[in-house]
């Protein structure tokens, strides 16, 4: 690809990010209209609250995943990190009453940070490709969940009311869980768009060589992306065991693909360099609404996976066709 072609592609991608958010919003609105015609319960406050509760953890983890994908990487270990953190915090909570919800959240983020930095170290210092690193740590972390728990569960009766209530309570009619996801989204939005480090993460994702030449500390920023993903997974792990009131060795199995799906549907480019937080949130929302809608219109839950797969494919095919159309129209105008 020549420099000009790459430039064209880049500006096309930027336009797409905007187009994508509009497109996915329109799609969500259409879906909402269709489903609410079939099931009046869909548009009730209770149901929307359920949908938001269901996607809160997904969006937290997907934001971390998106940060990594923006750097041209991928984090396959997110679900295992979430499960391992959840299990450690769950076991600590059931055996030591000192681990109150507040302590648990901090502890979760700390453990997640350690697991995330291990990925970061292997990718930067060890120079192992992200997909291999996180494929390896995915099985390592998952196996450790089993090793430390011996296959046993941490159940609801081993958790205090406050611990379970941490996700179920409300602040100003907004469920705590949704509130926390909102805070994470706002902080990451600010970080990625309005801090020098955030911009450097985009820069190294769009062109690592140029970023290095421009004096950006590539390794430090890469490491940071995996660290952020780790911290958010740790947070997600604590919230998960509180919300579902159990920690198991197969907690969140396959969740990494949901997180990647949410990011990709939300317009995060798998080749790095572009993607937005609002996009990721919309991607998570779309996945959540589809699952909820299938239940409400009485389609067998066995359709869930197939439909999610189709949405991923539809999203990327639309993207590719749109970006090609944009590039063509630009080259005709000769504005590049």
């Amino acid at each position: 690809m020549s420099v000009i072609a790459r430039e064209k592609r880049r500006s096309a991608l930027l336009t797409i990010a905007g187009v994508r958010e509009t497109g996915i919003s329109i799609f969500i609105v259409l879906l909402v209209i269709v489903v609410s015609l079939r099931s009046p319960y869909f548009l009730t406050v209770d149901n929307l609250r359920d949908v938001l509760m269901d996607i809160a953890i997904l969006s937290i983890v997907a934001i971390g995943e998106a940060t990594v994908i923006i750097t041209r990487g991928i984090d396959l270990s997110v679900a295992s990190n979430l499960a391992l953190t959840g299990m450690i915090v769950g076991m600590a909570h059931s055996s030591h009453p000192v681990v109150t919800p507040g302590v648990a959240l901090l502890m979760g983020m700390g453990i997640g940070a350690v697991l995330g930095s291990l990925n970061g170290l292997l990718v930067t210092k060890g120079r192992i490709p992200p997909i291999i690193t996180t494929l390896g740590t995915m099985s390592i972390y998952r196996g450790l969940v089993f090793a430390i728990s011996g296959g046993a569960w941490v159940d609801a009766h081993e958790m205090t009311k406050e611990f379970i209530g941490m996700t179920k309570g409300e602040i100003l009619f907004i469920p705590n869980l949704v509130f926390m996801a909102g805070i994470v989204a706002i902080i990451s939005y600010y970080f990625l768009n309005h801090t020098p480090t955030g911009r450097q993460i985009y820069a190294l994702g769009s062109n690592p060589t140029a970023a290095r030449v421009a004096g950006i500390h590539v390794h430090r920023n890469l490491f940071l992306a995996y660290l952020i993903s780790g911290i958010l997974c740790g947070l997600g792990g604590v919230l998960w065991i509180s919300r579902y009131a159990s920690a198991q060795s197969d907690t969140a199995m396959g969740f990494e693909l949901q997180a990647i799906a949410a990011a990709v549907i939300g317009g995060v480019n798998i080749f790095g360099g572009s993607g937005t937080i609002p996009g990721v949130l919309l991607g998570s929302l779309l996945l959540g609404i589809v699952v909820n809608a299938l239940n409400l219109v009485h389609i067998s839950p066995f359709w869930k996976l197939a439909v999610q797969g189709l949405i991923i494919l539809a999203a990327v095919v639309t993207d590719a066709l749109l970006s090609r159309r944009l590039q063509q129209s630009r080259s005709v105008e000769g504005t590049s």
Partner: protein
Amino acid sequence: MTSVTKAPPKRFTALSLLLRWEWLLVLLIIVACFVNASLSKYFLDVDNLFDMTFNFMEKSLVALAMTFIIISGNIDLSVASNLAMSAVIMATTFQSGLNIWLAVLLGLFVGTVGGLINGLLISRVRLPALVVTLGTYAFYRGVAFVLLGDLVVKGLSESFMYIGQGNVPNTPIPVPLLLFSVMAVLFGLVLHRTTFGRFIYAIGNNEETCRYSGVAVGRIKIIIFALSGFMSALAGVVMTARFGSVRPNIAAGLELDVITAVVLGGVNIFGGQGSILGVVLALFLIGIVRFGMSLKNVPGQIQSTLIGFLLILAILLPQLLRRLAPRLRG
């Protein structure tokens, strides 16, 4: 291999490293055998050794095609889902009265079409393989669930189950092992002795250059993805015959085991490097290590952890050696 001598020096060192890599795998296999033999006196029994291979032949069949795909610089995450989709379609059509062998053919056809769809989306719409096969990973598994729900298909015929459970008449050689050996030789010949194979490496090294040099990049990608689909379906047939039943969650997570084996076999995850021999050795290494751990009743989850370590070490160690080597020499 005349093409090697023509290649630039950098490629040559990469190849010589690769040769060393395969020797390292052989060494590790010998170590693993010694350890296993000391763990159990039954390990070195011929029947036992042959029986051991039943456990990883399906994975191995899929890994052969995955080797092509990764060397070409792509990846296929949908293999296990495609396996499940084709096995479920095979089993349900059999259940509704189709002759079992026709059902097998149908299964193989469905798997190939599944792979073909991946290939078309990747080469015609020019989408990244990772995203396309992530989508079909969910979609194909979803189709298996839609068709079968939480049911199980059983009652497959004895003659069919022979494919997955039987031995070659009058020998201790399992049928799946024979099938895999034939396939491994075929894949090895295609990859290392044909122009098609050289093109797979070339695409993995520099796709753009290949395109300008007139290599039919798109067609080759479509073929190898269709091949990957076919091999997944074939593995599905063997697995169905071995278990004697099909559930929609059959082979869940198999794609990661397969990718691990291929990378451990010395195939560069970015494409352009690797050999069938290395992958076959890695498959046997993982199989023997897992078998040894099963002898000691190590739970499956812990086994996966160790395989994960093995994967990371396998990449990390040569990297460190390569970085240390000049310093030691200097």
